[in-house]
């Protein structure tokens, strides 16, 4: 921050007789962008009031000459809005309490936890109603990096984009539904990026991927010593998302116990870390997603109805790719460009016959599978074009899938999965990756279709 913004720049005055305290706090706050003044005693502090106003002052309670209590009184006479934080040693906590009675904002004991110090100072500035200023600074932030756009020209996807933008303006809980690979996380990110929370983080938790035993600590954090080996405290995802959005993916997979805990957090926005008593408050918005039939899960009592109603306030349904084939060409072009850039390849065209195959394919793994196919084709293809032989399926298969007889959806999916499995030598991880579905889904499909390893 430039010095000519002196008046706007939030400022902190550190008063302590110990050089190392002045130096390290001064550096700490400077790195945070504050204007910092330091004084080694009360007289110096009083004379520095001419260089004020100081938004926040940190005072050592024990200094030779005039002590912190007396100094606090004098500073308040000069600037009645002075916001004072007392620095004390454990031994002097009584005096610190006295300072609180006389109007100090809070006190810290040396050595102070850096995380605590950060929050305390933030709270102090919030109390000074400088939030508007901070907000202005945030607005000046450059474009947030890494936001991928939803690609889709079909009326169905235009509707999804419209819904996402509309609900983004509110703080409503959103549930995104759709098959695996349809891009639920991307929609969640779009909502976040279009909301007033966009300068705060969006934190993703894939509930299905975190082992049950770790999910609680993952979501709520844990205190030092909460379990074997936990030497240090760890913050959970809800705490990290303060101000922003929590995206709970695969919400349909969480246990009954977690469902109860989650319900409580959604109602109160408060929780304790595992092994702790301190009540943590966090201001977050919830977006969740599932490909599971939650209504059926309620019927068989594996998903709580009260949680369902708490989450299912505003639903966005993303249709499978096979129901919106007009989106395939723009998606293909998008992925070709993306991988051309990341593989440093020249731009590659798509042979019309190959594009035809891509459009006709059934895509059980949806957009993610399409992306995987394009990535692979980009590796195989000889520039300047992707040809049908660069794709992992042929017209004959697709004709089979499009034959009007029998349950073609199922039969085609079965054939497709079997082909991929064979090709990958029944390596489940690689096959699931190629299909754009997770391993659990692949296992269930293998058993559903009675597929057997040759």
């Amino acid at each position: 921050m430039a010095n000519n913004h002196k008046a706007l720049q939030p400022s902190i005055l550190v008063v302590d007789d110990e050089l190392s305290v002045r130096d390290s706090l001064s550096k700490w706050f400077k790195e945070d962008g504050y204007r910092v003044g330091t004084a080694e005693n009360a007289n110096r502090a009083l004379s520095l009031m001419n260089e004020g106003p100081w938004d926040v002052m940190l005072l050592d309670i024990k200094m030779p000459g005039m002590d912190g209590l007396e100094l606090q009184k004098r500073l308040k006479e000069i600037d009645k809005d002075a916001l004072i934080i007392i620095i004390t040693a454990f031994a002097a906590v009584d005096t610190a309490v006295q300072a609180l009675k006389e109007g100090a904002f809070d006190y810290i004991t040396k050595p102070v936890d850096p995380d605590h110090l950060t929050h305390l100072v933030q709270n102090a500035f919030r109390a000074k109603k400088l939030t508007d200023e901070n907000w202005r600074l945030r607005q000046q932030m450059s474009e947030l990096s890494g936001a991928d756009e939803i690609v889709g020209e079909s009326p169905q996807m235009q509707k999804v984009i419209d819904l996402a933008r509309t609900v983004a303006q509110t703080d409503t809980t959103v549930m995104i539904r759709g098959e695996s690979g349809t891009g639920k996380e991307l929609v969640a990110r779009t909502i976040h990026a279009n909301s007033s929370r966009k300068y705060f983080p969006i934190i993703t938790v894939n509930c299905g991927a975190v082992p049950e035993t770790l999910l609680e600590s993952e979501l709520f954090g844990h205190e030092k010593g909460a379990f074997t080996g936990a030497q240090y405290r760890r913050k959970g995802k809800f705490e990290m998302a303060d101000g922003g959005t929590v995206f709970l993916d695969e919400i349909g997979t969480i246990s009954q116990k977690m469902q109860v805990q989650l319900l409580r957090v959604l109602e109160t926005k408060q929780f304790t870390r595992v092994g702790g008593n301190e009540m943590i408050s966090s201001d977050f918005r919830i977006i969740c997603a599932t490909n599971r039939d939650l209504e059926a899960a309620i019927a068989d009592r594996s998903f709580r109805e009260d949680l369902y109603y708490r989450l299912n306030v505003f639903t966005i349904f993303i249709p499978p790719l096979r129901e919106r084939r007009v989106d395939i060409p723009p998606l293909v072009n998008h992925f070709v460009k993306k991988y051309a850039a990341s593989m440093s390849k020249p731009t590659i065209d798509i042979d019309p016959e190959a594009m035809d195959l891509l459009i006709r394919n059934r895509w059980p793994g949806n957009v993610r599978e399409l992306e995987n196919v394009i990535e692979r084709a980009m590796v195989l293809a000889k520039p300047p074009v992707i040809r049908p032989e660069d794709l992992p399926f042929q017209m004959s298969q697709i004709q089979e899938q499009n034959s009007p007889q029998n349950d073609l959806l199922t039969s085609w999916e079965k054939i497709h999965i079997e082909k991929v499995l064979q090709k990958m030598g029944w390596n489940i991880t690689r096959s699931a990756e190629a299909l754009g579905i997770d391993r659990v889904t692949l296992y269930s499909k293998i058993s559903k279709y009675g597929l057997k390893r040759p």
Partner: protein
Amino acid sequence: MSSILIVAISPIDRSLLDPLVEPLTRAFGPRVEVSRSQTLEGSFAFNVSRNQYGSTPLISALLDRFDDFDGRILGVTSGDLFVPVLTYVFGEAQLDGKVAVVSSHRLNDELYGLGADRKLLHLRLLKESVHELGHTFGLLHCNDYLCVMHSSTGVEEIDMKTERLCPECRGKLVSNTAG
């Protein structure tokens, strides 16, 4: 842009150093090297009652030792670092100066009761190295939570940010190093 010399400070897991070279080169420029001949013995900065190493005396020692070196010094240690007024720091740097130090100690998932994750440890150390070196090039903390100059007081926050500078910080880095 000036060169960067990575210096081991004992106690140190030396295998942490080499993986820093390439990504730091990408972040800051052409000459990043691990010093093969020099190791700073960290024990003089050890504080028995706190069971930690003072980061400020380590910075001073590196400053003395590499008086002749015209570039940035990144000291890396596996010891737990502190400054007297704080319970711990992940690293410390001279703002707009020459020397930065970082510690891998609290970046290790095992100390949080989780399984060892070597890759994550390397990545966290890289982020903290870029961050502290960023301070030596005059960069302050950044509001963009994806930017490596975002302030982190916990590993969770380190994990949230990327190892890259946001466009704004990158711009500042370029202009700070141009003159």
